[in-house]
């Protein structure tokens, strides 16, 4: 068996995941991002409750 120094090896790096699995994961991650935004964006855009604003403003006046 012939010894080949690491610096001379021409081997391609072994991919961590099969391409198809990586594609599936990427597609799922994209779908997940859109889905989570649909689920939670509504909460972000809701107005701040009056009661909470009142508490903050009262404290500001102190």
């Amino acid at each position, binding site marked *: 068996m012939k010894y080949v120094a690491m610096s001379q090896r021409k081997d391609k790096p072994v991919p961590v995941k099969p391409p198809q699995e990586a594609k599936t994961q990427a597609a799922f991650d994209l779908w997940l991002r859109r889905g989570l935004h649909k689920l939670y964006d509504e909460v972000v855009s809701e107005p701040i409750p009056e009661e909470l604003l009142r508490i*903050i403003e009262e404290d500001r006046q102190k």
Partner: protein
Amino acid sequence: MTTAVTFHDQIIAIVPKLRVQALALTRNRAAAEDLVQDAVCNALSAQDSFIPGTNFAALMHRILRNRFISNLRKRRDTTDIEDVPSSSFATDAPHEDRLALKELGRAMTRLPVDQREALVMVVVHGMSYEALAEATGCAVGTAKSRVFRARRQLEAWLLGERQERQSRPASRLERERSIPARQERLHPSS
């Protein structure tokens, strides 16, 4: 007083994000609103100790999280309500999309609480792993790992391609106790 104005304005600006974090933690709209209000009150009462220039967002997320843990310790009998925003399902999206969204909402409630929180803060808020780590008081590697495991667990559940071989779904008890139990180990109360 400039600092006080900045502090209050910063609180108002971050409330929407706190609300999302609270919903991710509690899975209940009413409980989330209460949690946000409690966290804001805690922050207001401790504003003198706030140092301008520090990461305000991380501070507020941490206050809310600590408050959640504290509430959980007091009230172990929390109701297990799956309270994903209902109107999310009443969109113009096609029927299949609505069903998929509903499935996602359900799957989210099954995730361990720290994974759910991490995923929402990174994906919905666009928070960096470093900021997430600071906000949740963990190492950056832990923050990354939580988000990664949450993604892959959801993929396994929703696509059904893999059996739940690596991480079986946590029981409700495990989910709700995971953070306090860890906190208890790190900081045992006398």
